[in-house]
Structures are given as structure tokens and as C-alpha cells.
């Protein structure tokens, strides 16, 4: 087995917030199958807060655990707070990730950020109309 922390194993075996949100306010997709990991994050925003966060992930144990952890960290946060989630803080919350997995699987924060950007740009366009 890869050397994963107990926290990683817990989030891998029992991932939180798996799934899609119908009519999401924002969607963020990162990764590609060549490098091995792909993540899609869906968000629902209410009054500048992340009311709901869900994800779908194709990837290794670490990638699934990262996605689960990011969704848990982000839920209920304001958009500004959520955008401060970094790969480092995710890895810390997971009690560490194997060195060679840090970059390839730790895409959750980026995917969440993309989903928030998606929401913000849609809102801007909506505002113009």
C-alpha cells in the first residue's frame, strides 16, 4: 500500500460530498487522464457563502482524499475564505501526503478555485445583462 496517513485513508474509504449538484452556480474542472488525476467541483452559493460543494474525481487514493477534504474545508465558508485554501493547507489537514503525490493529486484547491471563478464570471455577465 502507498504510505498514506490515517486521515487520507479515512477520506479515501469514506469520501464526503461525492456527487454532482443540479444546476450548480459554478463548475471547476482540472487535470487530465494522462497524468492520472481529474477532478470536477460543483458549488452552490448563497449570500456569498458556499452553501454546498460536491465533487467527482478520477484518480488515485490521494486524489480522492484531497477532493473529499477540500469539499469539507470549503463548505460553509465565504468565497474569500474558500479561495484561501491551498494545496499546502489541504495536505496539512490530511496529515501529510506522500512526496511524489503532492503535485499530481493535490488539485482540489485549484478545482474549487476554478468553480468559484466560474461563479463570479457568470455573475458578472448576469449583471451586465
Amino acid at each position, binding site marked *: 500500500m502507498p504510505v498514506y496517513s490515517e486521515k487520507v485513508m479515512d477520506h479515501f474509504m469514506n469520501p464526503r460530498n461525492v456527487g454532482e449538484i443540479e444546476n450548480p452556480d459554478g463548475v471547476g474542472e482540472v487535470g487530465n487522464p494522462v497524468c492520472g488525476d481529474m477532478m470536477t467541483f460543483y458549488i452552490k452559493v448563497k449570500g456569498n457563502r458556499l452553501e454546498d460543494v460536491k465533487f467527482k474525481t478520477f484518480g488515485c*487514493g490521494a486524489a480522492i482524499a484531497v477532493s473529499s477534504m477540500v469539499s469539507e474545508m470549503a463548505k460553509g465558508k465565504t468565497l474569500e475564505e474558500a479561495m484561501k485554501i491551498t494545496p499546502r493547507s489541504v495536505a496539512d489537514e490530511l496529515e501529510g501526503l506522500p512526496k511524489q503525490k503532492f503535485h499530481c493529486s493535490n488539485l482540489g484547491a485549484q478545482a474549487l478555485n476554478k468553480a468559484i471563478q466560474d461563479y463570479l464570471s457568470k455573475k458578472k455577465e448576469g449583471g451586465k445583462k
Partner: protein
Amino acid sequence: MPYLGDIFGNPSSLHDWGDGAREAIKSAREQVAELIGANADEIIFTGSGTESNNFAIKGLALAQQNKGKHVAVSAIEHFSVLHPAKTLEKWGFEVSEIPVDKYGVVNPDDVRRSLRKDTVLVSIMHANGEVGTIEPIREIAAIARERNIPFHTDAVATAGTTPVNVAELGVDALSLAGNQFYGPKGVGALWIRKGIRIMPLLDGGIQEEGRRAGTENVPAIVGLGKAAELAKTHMAGRIKRLTPLRDRLLQELPKRIEHVVVTGHPQNRLPGHVSFCVEFIEGESLLMLLNSRGIAVSSGSACTSRALKASHVLIAMGLSHEIAQGSVLFTLGIDSTSEDIDYVLETMPPIVDRLRQMSPLYAKFSKTMKGGKQHASL
């Protein structure tokens, strides 16, 4: 294990205390030779299958570099052949990589076409450990022999599990390792036909007729010999028992799980070897969930490799990176039973389903299916 206790003498010593160890190595050499139908004095003990392959590729090429500097290997060789071939390139050799078909089979005509006037070595594996395909070595070796080019085969996956006879295969050098047939880890052997020249990798004393210097690992060598003897005795029975188990898993799993691709040759494969790619999911997460249910498998996905690259074998067979990510390999052993196969067939479908429910690739695929584009995507 007396070779870590009472019989501690150095086999190279002339005094009586070395005799026991020397005798033990001698009989191990005979046991290993017997396994592959060779003469005992043509066996060189090494530290692993990797060392045997390194020795063969570098040693055979270097010994003949005055005749030419071209080497041909298949694209699906183990890294312990491909990487020494890369090293030869750095040393001024040219290396041709021979392609394989979708089953991982090397076409003898492609080997023929790759040969040149300055080719000094051809190396094609006997069987591929990742996809199980057994190569037509006899035909390929005959092509090399017609032109007097030394031919090496990496038989690490076959020696001890399927019949290997160096005379029947018509090869000039062959690598094997003990850990493939219940021998100790960290010991291997290279067989070289008498009269074929090889440059040693390790210089020093005159152990192994001066071809591999260094004090012998007596307990490991004795273990390799014993494992070879047992493998030979039980081989026919093991093949007879494992082949139907293998075929059942190969046939049943794709019936129970949609979008599973069998990798390697459907029939012409190692007796206990079952390999698949499960689409839309990644091999390491599948491996981990199977492990949590007591099923040990391996995978060639990028995430399971330290280099984070998908298996070169699967890519050489023409599979996409996306599909290669879902690679999973079962090796059945002497303890595997029909009940074990039942257990895998029951346990694996819900695990695959669970990972697919999580997979954005599967979600996209399902949406395309609903959109009525079934034929386009299949």
C-alpha cells in the same frame, strides 16, 4: 537454514570449511540447469532478474562491439532490459525498438526487418509479466540464429511457471529469477550458451568462472536451486490447475463488469495471469479498495508507478492513457482456489461501481450514452 549457521564457510576457500558451501552451490547450479534444460556449467548466479538482464544486454553487446553497435529489443521489455539498452545508446550503440500488436505479441517479421549488418544482439522477452502474453521465441530466435546474432530472452516471467527449454527455444542467453517461483528474493541466474562471449559487469575474483566476481550469496542460491527443483516437479500439475481458474476469471469478469478490456493475449498467456483495464477508473484506487477486502492485485497506472507514468507496455499495445490508467493485474498462485475466484467475482463489481459513481469520466460517458450517441462512443 544451515548456510547461515554451521555451513558458514566461503565457497571459494580451499580449507574443508568451504567445502559444504561449494557443494551446495554446485547442486543448486544443477537444479537450476535442470529447470531450463541446460548444462550446469552454463549457469551464472546473479543478485536478481534485473542483474541478469543488465548483464546480458550490456555484457553481450560490449563483448561484440568490434563487430557492430546495433541492438534490437521489443518495446514491451522490462525496464531492466530497456534501461540498459538506453545506457548502451549513451555508449555509442544504436537501439531499435520492435513494436507489438494489440495483444502484446512481437511479429517475427518485424524482428527480421529490424536486423542490420551491424546488429550484435537481439533481446525479446519470453513472456510479459504485465499482460501475460507469451512471445513466439522459437521463431524469433531462429531468425537471429540464421544470421549468427546472439539472442537473449528475459524468461523471468516464465522460468519456473511454464516449460522453458533453452535447446527447444534456440536461444543463446536467458535470464531467470527465483522470486517468480517461490524462491528467495534477491537471487537470479543468467544462462549463457557455451561459446557465447560476454563482458563481466563485476570484475574482481574468479567466482562464477570469472564472469561474476563477488562472494556468492550461498543461502539465496541454495534456495533458488530448491525452488527450481520444486517448480519442475510441480509445474505440470500447477498449470493444469491454474489455467481453468485463470480462464474463468478472464471470461467472467467482463460479463459482470461493463467496459472492461482484457489486456494481453486471450489464450497464449501465462497460466496464472489475469489482466484487465477497467475503464473510467484509476488503478491505484481500485487496488486499495480490493486490498481492503483482502484481494492483492497490482496495477500499471501512472499513479501506482514511482515515475508517475502509465505502463509503457499498455501504451505500446495501443491503449490510450485514459484506459491504461485502469489497469489491474491478478496473479494466481499455488494457494489460489476456485472459491477465491468466486470471491473476486462477487467483490469486484460493487467496488468498480463505487469508483465509477465518483468518476467524472464515467459521468461524461453516461451523459453521452443518454444523448443517443451510443454508437459513436463505443
